[in-house]
């Protein structure tokens, strides 16, 4: 790790005021610190945002669940209010990494990093999340722009994420046997307006699987997916899973998700 200046901000304005081209926001640090230790990343200033009160808290209304960006995965997993509104979010958060990661890692950190195998981006996309930042509100569909890329501008800080409450939803992750990141993760959400299915881990970035959505729109059941064939031509292929295997896992995970939707 290379030396850096550490700042701990107590307000959003203080954090954004400290930001520069050579700075980074530190939340849980579950990806950022290992990257810095491996010298894959280095910054002049590291601005810790964990102590900013505005970045904490869970608010549930009749239509949406708003979660502060610095909320830890373990807090989401254990939240009774979220469990009542969107139980799939609790399931998702409860299976990220391991207990240590869940007690440090945060929602804002996860989506700002936009790891193509991370779990949270799938929930954002399937639940039409709105990302509240220090500057504006961004729709999830416009937020995730590519592998480790987001619509965030330099110095822009995620404050909270607002998820719309679906009729029912479910998340199924097929973990990579080594890292336990999603080798394939499928978030199925049944909204009044239609079914949204977001897939993580399978491509260079998070995406919606239209073939499954259409089938489930017609008939929301596992059976509806029996004859769906996922185009594997642009799916990831690596030592853990070929594109064909991932295609098959998308279907089997989607089926499981449908079966467990609540």
């Amino acid at each position: 790790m290379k030396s850096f200046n550490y700042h701990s901000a107590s307000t959003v304005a203080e954090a954004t005021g400290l930001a520069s081209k050579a700075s980074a926001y530190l939340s849980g640090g579950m990806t950022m610190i290992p990257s810095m230790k491996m010298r894959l990343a280095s910054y002049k200033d590291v601005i810790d945002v964990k102590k900013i009160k505005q970045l904490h808290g869970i608010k549930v209304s009749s239509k949406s669940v708003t979660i502060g960006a610095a909320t830890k995965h373990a807090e989401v997993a254990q939240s009774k209010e979220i469990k009542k509104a969107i139980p799939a979010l609790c399931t998702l958060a409860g299976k990220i990494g391991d207990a240590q990661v869940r007690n440090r890692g945060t929602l804002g950190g996860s989506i700002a990093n936009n790891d193509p195998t991370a779990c949270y981006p799938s929930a954002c996309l399937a639940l039409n999340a709105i990302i509240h930042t220090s500057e504006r509100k961004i729709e999830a569909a416009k937020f995730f722009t590519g592998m480790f890329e987001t619509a965030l501008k330099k110095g822009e800080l995620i404050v909270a994420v607002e998820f719309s409450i679906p009729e029912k939803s479910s998340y199924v992750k097929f973990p990579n046997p080594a890292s336990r990141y999603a080798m394939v993760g499928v978030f199925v959400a049944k909204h009044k307006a239609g079914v949204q299915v977001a897939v993580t881990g399978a491509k260079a970035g998070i995406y919606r699987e239209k073939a499954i959505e259409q089938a489930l729109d017609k008939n929301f059941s596992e059976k509806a997916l029996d004859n769906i064939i996922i185009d594997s031509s642009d799916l990831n292929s690596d030592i853990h899973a070929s594109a064909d295997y991932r295609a098959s896992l998308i279907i089997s995970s989607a089926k499981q998700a449908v079966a467990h939707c609540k």
Partner: protein
Amino acid sequence: MASSMIGSRVERTEDKKFITGKGRYTADITLHGQTYAFFIRSPHARAKIKKVDISKALAAPGVVTILTGQDIIKDKIGGLIAGWKIVSKDGTDMKLPAHPPLAHDQVNYVGDHVAVVIAESLEEARNAAELVNVDYKVLTAVVNTASAMTSEAIYEGIDKNLCFDWELGDKAKTEEAFAKADRIVHLKLNNNRLVPNAMEPRASIGEYNSSTDDLTLYTTSQNPHLTRLVISAFNGVHPEHKFRVVAPDVGGGFGSKIYPYAEDVVIAYAAKKIGRPVKWVCERTDSFLSDCHGRDHVTEAELAVRKDGIVTGLRVNTIANLGGYGSLFATVTPTYLYAPLIVGLYNIPAAYCNVKAVFTNTAPVDAYRGAGRPEATYLIERIMDQAANEMGMDRAEFRKKNFITAFPHQQCLVHNIDSGDYHAHFNKALELADYKGFAKRKADSAAKGKLRGIGFSTYIEACGIAPSSVVMSIGAGVGLWESAEVRFNATGNISVFTGAHSHGQGHATTFAQIVADKLGVPMANIDLVHGDTDKGPFGMGTYGSRSLAVGGSAISKACDKIIDKGKRVAAHMLESTPDEIDFKDGEFIVRNSNKKKTIGEIAFACYLPGTYGEIKSPLPAGVEPGLKETAFYDPINFSFPSGSHVCEVEIDQDTGVTKVVKYSCVDDFGTLINPMIVEGQVHGGLAQGIGQALYENAYYDETGQLVTASYMDYAMPRADHFPEFKIEYTCTPATSNPLGVKGCGEAGAIASPPAVMNAVIDAIGTDISMPATSEKVWQALRTKVKSAKKAA
């Protein structure tokens, strides 16, 4: 009290410090004036070093010195050694490349050591390392085990990349068995390459005192005396008598910390050269790249079987990958630790094994938990299943038909097996696993749409590798005895010194139990001292499930000497004769009398040998004061643990995920000293073996880059992968050591891979290689469905 110590589930006395963070590992040590080392490693699998330019880096802030291969040459630092000479079948000695601790001519695997930067802080060392410019001429890498012999030669003078072409067994007799066989069963096997993954990464700290000429190396070693011997005698860094090696608490090794590495040699040498302490701590990525790996065999096996199911011959050809260099125990692992055990527990009258060991541009391969025995067991247990299936026989019955039943048994290969009862543990394992109920469980799984399979594995291992005269006659560069010293203090408590060195096995508890049992002294009054060449006598370390059988026996022998001396002293004090004295439960008693002295009183007398006030303890004439005895123990034979394991798996057809749902094992480890510690050893071994079967694989791409160089890609087994293990024992005491113990540390890792794989293959009905990942299983099932459709 005393007699109950053997076989008692005593809680581990060392655990308090480990679970409260009070252990003291090498990386915990900080010395005054300490500098920090960072190694520059080769990013290429094979390349010529044209130039190493350190000029910019030397000028960087905080840099103390930078050492390269040229310094190694200039200061005449010797190369790393392979400690076991193997002779090829044509009578020629094995061929080895030079292995300098810092490369100066050619690098031979990704992670090979090129230079070391030593600076005032680790950050400065790392910053300066980025300024070292190494000019490489990249050469084509040889990576694949099976094709290494037909690839470009990595080293001049080592034709076909072949270290040796060795054989064992009676070839003619084996050919005859095959000529007469009713059936010949063929099987091709890969034994996948594994990364050891000790929880504590390697580390070393060198410290030199120029006024006394004393050099100390703190290091993560299973075997500090051997490290001292090798670094002084072969690397020539410092004379043995002025060189101390300390291995404090060691956090796992699984064999990977038996011998000194390049870093140990360089750190010791650098500390002496700059006259300041030098500390190096391995990062996890470095561990993946440069800890010696395990296994990596490609094997073709054939079994000759009679119509009635009697196995009459076994023929094996193995290619073993040694990696880029010949590591210290690399050459014995795929030969004498492997081939003699390919016949398993079976009475096979003729067997032949050819092993070709090849160099490749990958990390060196050496002993890893089981070392050769898992490879042998995987081979015989897989082919026994294959044979039973081909002949339509029950796999359990087929095994029983071929078990050795009379002991001692002289195998057709090497070993004379002293004891065992294979039917006993196999039958007990079938019962424990409820083999009879399997069909119902399979049907229940099928009702859920899942495939269920059952797999058996029996194994024999040869532990406590010995005697020295025999192992040295087949190439060992060291004797394989062990030493112990039992030292009474004047106040009656005891310090026990052993040359074995625990790296997680619980020696402090088990060895204290032996002493408590022998001498009738409470455990609390016994302290085990190990891991420091300045404290105990010369020892041979911990590996090969040898510590209890060999080291424990040395302790037992030293206790016998204490008792002998105690009898002489007691006889004098009690006005009797030594042959009239009995020793029991810590007391010396004149036979048929109530006259007695405790061992504490005897110890006191030995240290205060005279009369002074109330102290009246003159020693008999000719008896030296003090109560301390040393013993070296060289066993008469290996010990031969054996056992039967039964694994049941359930497979999800949609995803190919295999779940181990039941695991039962019955092991014969001879006499158990502490069954709780033994159970822990079995658990750990099973975790590693199941890991090898289902998850772990060190994968190099065709350019020699290790793709699985972090936990992001190297799949380790986790606790939630395992069912509750059912563990039971049978006991036939070993006759080769006074304790009757056989060794238990590696058994789980030896027995479980074939048990799991046989279960997976039973479930899916087709052959599959290790690791049986979910994708491989899914692919195998898909291929099966496709070919079934085609056939229809």
